[in-house]
């Protein structure tokens, strides 16, 4: 076991707290950077897809995991990002400009939508955000001059400073760069006064208010930055899809995003990443499993969304801390070996307010 001597307040603020962090995260980064040289192109494409999910997951984690605002409508922000990016790219804007605009549109719409929703909590907030997502989907389907309606909108290959990203590995590094940027911002947010205010609102609105936190402003900030990150994810998603149609951003995507943060572990930055890996791999696993299952089950319509639902319910019942909770327990098991006891986590099995129906 590692024992850390704290001699400075900075040690509590630093992101990489000790040499172990440097070593393991360094190793992980190295593996990720070398992956395109080693792995098959198909896997690189899938990994890029997971990064896009992770960006959206981090975006969703801020309101759902930290501020306690369960959003069932984040597919809308993906759509806003994707269509904004696609539209401005087709209008001749350079890649970075239209990519930034996708983030800004997400930010502004996220802020605006929270103004009427800020007094709602729990399931009411979830339903209102679901309504928002459905409205956005309908607008996209009908605003033909901008979005192409149901006929769709094609998105060109990304070109940065005249350098076309034609290969999968180039797109992979683009997604990775955005993910690292968003990850850095989220980690900063969590250790800053704003992030603390978010967590305060999640745990007790009344006491957050009496500590001088302006609830409306912080809820708006939380949803705005979430809209921005998810919008950026949407912009990258647009390149992955090549062709945008409104039904790519339907209710199922919202559920997938929410499942990502719940299964990953609510209220943790790790959770968004774990959840993205899980949600990214699950369809592949289902596809492989289909070959081995009897056709009556394997060809069953709605198998995938059904399984998503079942997995989410099982996680909420048996592991409210999600995959991250498992990860912490596994780590502790090896650190404490052979003294680990299950009861260590007994008392911490409480639920966040987001998970309760209020």
């Amino acid at each position, binding site marked *: 076991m590692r024992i850390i001597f704290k001699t400075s*307040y*900075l040690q*509590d*603020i630093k992101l990489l707290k000790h040499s172990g962090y440097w070593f393991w995260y360094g190793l992980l980064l190295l593996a990720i950077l070398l992956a395109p040289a080693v792995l098959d192109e198909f896997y690189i494409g899938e990994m890029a897809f997971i990064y896009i999910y992770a960006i959206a997951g981090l975006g969703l984690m801020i309101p759902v995991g930290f501020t306690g605002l369960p959003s069932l409508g984040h597919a809308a922000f993906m759509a806003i990002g994707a269509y904004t990016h696609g539209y401005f790219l087709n209008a001749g804007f350079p890649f970075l400009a239209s990519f930034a605009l996708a983030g800004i549109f997400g930010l502004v719409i996220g802020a605006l939508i929270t103004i009427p929703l800020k007094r709602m909590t729990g399931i009411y907030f979830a339903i209102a955000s679901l309504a928002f997502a459905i409205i956005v989907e309908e607008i996209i389907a009908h605003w033909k001059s901008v979005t192409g309606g149901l006929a769709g909108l094609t998105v060109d290959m990304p070109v940065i400073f005249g350098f076309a990203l034609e290969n999968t590995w180039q797109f992979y590094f683009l997604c990775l760069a955005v993910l690292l940027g968003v990850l850095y*911002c989220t980690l*900063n*947010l969590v*250790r*800053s*006064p*704003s*992030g*603390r*205010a978010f*967590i*305060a609102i*999640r*745990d*007790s609105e*009344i*006491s*957050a*208010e*009496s*500590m*001088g*936190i*302006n*609830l409306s402003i912080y809820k708006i*900030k939380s949803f705005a*930055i979430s809209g921005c990150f998810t919008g950026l994810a949407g912009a990258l998603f647009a390149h992955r899809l090549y062709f945008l149609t409104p039904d790519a951003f339907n209710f199922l995507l919202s559920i997938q995003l929410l499942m990502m943060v719940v299964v990953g572990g609510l*209220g943790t930055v790790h959770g968004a990443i774990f959840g993205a890996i899980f949600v990214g791999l699950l369809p592949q696993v289902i596809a492989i499993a289909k070959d081995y299952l009897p056709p009556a089950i394997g060809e069953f319509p709605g198998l995938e969304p059904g399984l998503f639902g079942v997995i989410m319910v099982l996680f909420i019942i048996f592991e409210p801390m999600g995959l991250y909770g498992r990860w912490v327990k596994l780590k502790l098991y090896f650190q404490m070996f052979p003294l680990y006891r299950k009861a260590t986590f007994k*008392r*911490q099995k*409480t639920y*966040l307010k987001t998970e309760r129906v209020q």
Partner: protein
Amino acid sequence: MTFFKAENISIDFGGIRAVNNVSFEVDKGTIFMIVGPNGAGKTTIFNIISRIYSLTEGRITFEEQDITRLPAHRVVQLGIARTFQNIELFDHATVLHNLLIGRHIHCRSPFFADLLFLPSVKRMELAHRRKVEDVIDFLDLQHYRDQLIQNLPYGVRKIVELGRALCTEPKLLLLDEPASGLNVDETEDMSFWIDDIKKLLGITVIMVEHNMNLVSQVSDHVLAINYGESLADGSPREVQQNPDVIKAYLGEDKDAG
């Protein structure tokens, strides 16, 4: 100049008048106690002061400023901090984290600076941490610094909540039953701390309390209320001997009549 003044405050919940025409003044640097049987409206008065409830009638002024219509989060910025009877801490956070939230009103960094964690934010964070450590030392919480609230015993949580209120550097502190649920030793510690808060930190305290020992030990002025109306107002001794107060607490003596 009156430090804190409540003039004829009343509040209705539907048809029920929970507080009726109560007036009181608090002098700077004193400990003002509100006592009364259960349901008398003590906590309601606290919720009115910290603007969780809105007054039906009346006026509240703090340092000559009218706070009757201020939003709740502005009240604490003026220097009025509070604790809750049933502990409203942030359960999924550490003690340190909870105390740092107490510093929120002194955090002035713009949102984008937080996102990038600019050097200015880092400097401010270190300064806040130092202030928080002062409070930790004052209340002897060193041992619990990195523990999650949900794993702490009740008595410690009470003290953490007091600490969080102190972190806001208030001028006026509202304590809602600080000794409820504490054992004899803990209550004694609490009474010393409240005394220290007054004498060392110069903070004025308004508190609600049932423990009469604590009331007579620390308070300078007592207001007794029952059914939302004020019964008696004066020094602890005067109030304890007031016949109306005795009647409210113990009932009437039939034979004496």
